[in-house]
């Protein structure tokens, strides 16, 4: 009897939780017919935001890969004093409230900021430009990539690295021919996570870069700007982001289930299916 009751309670709670998570997403598509959603997507507000979002996110991702990968590899492959501190510093932006992140970026790169005055002397003004959007996206999204990349590099069997060295490969060749291919899936997964996070960036961007249409107004900022003006356009933007996010999630799951190098130990990211 008590077991039945527990089962019913669990099922009920699960149903409520699931419904709560699904309802807002469904509501976006339910309110406006799909044909009108599609029509709204061609308005300049939407196309401008799309261009700004993808341009800044693409540059930010390139920067994250370029600077984050070596950092992740060093942290994963070396044991040094202060390593735990470095990991904590890398992860800090992940838990930082977005408003604080925006404030920090302003204090560092803003007109009156720590480095801002130096840049200003060189004629570089970062805040409220597309560069500011890129920096904000990179700041909030990079920890997701770096964290996953550290785990991916750590999962590469050290004996394979050692084998490569004894076979006459230097550390550079070993990195590109053994470490990178074997960590590849993990890196791609981290990149997909960072991309999703960057695309949805809102708080830090609006504080550090403002919301100028065609310059710094990204998709999330455009939703915020439009929902009091034209709710249908906001809904269309929302539907677009839902579609992109769903595609990213699907990609992520595909990357993680497709593993060319099965290990004997279960992967940290093994799909639940």
């Amino acid at each position, binding site marked *: 009897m008590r077991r039945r009751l527990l089962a019913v309670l669990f099922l009920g709670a699960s149903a409520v939780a699931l419904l709560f998570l699904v309802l807002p997403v469904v509501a976006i598509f339910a309110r406006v017919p799909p044909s009108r959603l599609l029509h709204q997507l061609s308005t300049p507000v939407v196309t401008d935001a799309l261009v700004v979002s993808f341009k800044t996110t693409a540059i930010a991702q390139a920067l994250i890969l370029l600077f984050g990968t070596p950092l992740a590899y060093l942290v994963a492959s070396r044991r040094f004093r202060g390593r735990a501190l470095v990991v904590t510093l890398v992860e800090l932006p992940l838990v930082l409230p977005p408003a604080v992140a925006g404030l920090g970026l302003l204090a560092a790169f803003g007109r009156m900021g720590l480095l801002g005055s130096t840049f200003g002397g060189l004629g570089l003004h970062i805040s409220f430009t597309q560069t500011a959007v890129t920096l904000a996206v990179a700041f909030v999204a990079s920890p997701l990539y770096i964290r996953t990349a550290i785990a991916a590099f750590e999962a590469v069997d050290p*004996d*394979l690295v050692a*084998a490569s*060295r*004894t076979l006459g*490969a230097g550390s550079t060749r070993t990195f590109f021919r053994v470490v990178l291919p*074997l960590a590849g899936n993990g890196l791609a997964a981290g990149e997909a996570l960072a991309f999703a996070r960057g695309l949805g960036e809102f708080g830090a961007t609006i504080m550090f870069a403002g919301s100028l249409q065609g310059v710094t107004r990204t998709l999330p900022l455009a939703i915020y700007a439009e929902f009091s003006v034209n709710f249908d356009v906001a809904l269309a933007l929302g539907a677009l982001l839902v579609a992109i996010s769903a595609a990213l999630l699907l990609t992520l799951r595909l990357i993680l289930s497709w593993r*060319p*190098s099965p290990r004997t130990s279960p992967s940290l990211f093994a799909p639940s299916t």
Partner: protein
Amino acid sequence: MATLSADFALPLRSFDLRLALDVERTVALVGPSGAGKSSALRAIAGLLRPAEGRIALDGEAWVDVARGVCLEADERRVGLVFQDYALFPHLSVRANVAYGGRERVDELLERFRISHLAKARPRELSGGERQRVALARALARDPGVLLLDEPLAALDAHTKAGVRVELQELLAGFELPALIVTHDYEDAVALAGTVGVLVDGELRQLGSPEELVAEPRDPFVASFTGANLLRGRAVGHENGLTTVRLESGELLYSTDGADGEVGVVVYPWDVSVGRAYVDDSALNLVSGEVGSLVQVGNRVRVRVGPLTAEVTGASAERLELARGGTVFASFKATGTRLVPL
């Protein structure tokens, strides 16, 4: 023939590994797990850095701590076969071999009978096949020395016997110094002409298998080598029994199959000692003088001719065993192992 000379000290977690030996042909380092065997190979390969000493191949110094020389792993001409083979899982068999060197890939694939697997990934291979790939890859590097880390440990018992013979043939036809690490004394004897017993980072004894069994330098070497080893030649097969003629001329029987030069391995605890001759075809009989009597716990180790037997203290008293008396040592054909030499 080249010579690998190693004389170095390497601090490990709970002790210092100290190794001094010259490897000309095949040398096996044998010892319990955690004795520092793998670390020794890794130091020679350049994956661990000795604190002092020298490692050189034919006078070319790889490590000379006093002179500040320590070549990187990729600068030493060494072929290291890892215990789990460490094949690159994302590369085909051919690409794995070619990783060591591109010149002789086809020849090596052919030689190790893995040409038909060239396109396969390591995960599709059996244990024996993986080992052949690992060996081919190590040789593709054109090494000056071959290092094998527990080459038989990752294999099941059935595969192991066959692979051991293959390895023997390979090493026999080799023009390179080879250092093998194993925890199995039988494997060491089968593969190497010189065996070193390594315990807690210390080389307790280095010698031929016969020397180690006949004159173990300390109790550990004695207990580790344990078995009697008699040299002989398989001269016949009948009714599931192999007849072996010992160098002394005596005939022994074993249920193991073998051909050519063999080592007869008998564990002392499988040997009984008696005063009377027993006529039993299932029993091997060796007569001889009692050479030595050593009390080990509640048992007595008796040396009878070329054999060491272990009997209970009670039966030693009952038999009135004493040095110089003639006795018969007997052991079953089923308890007699044959290892190819």
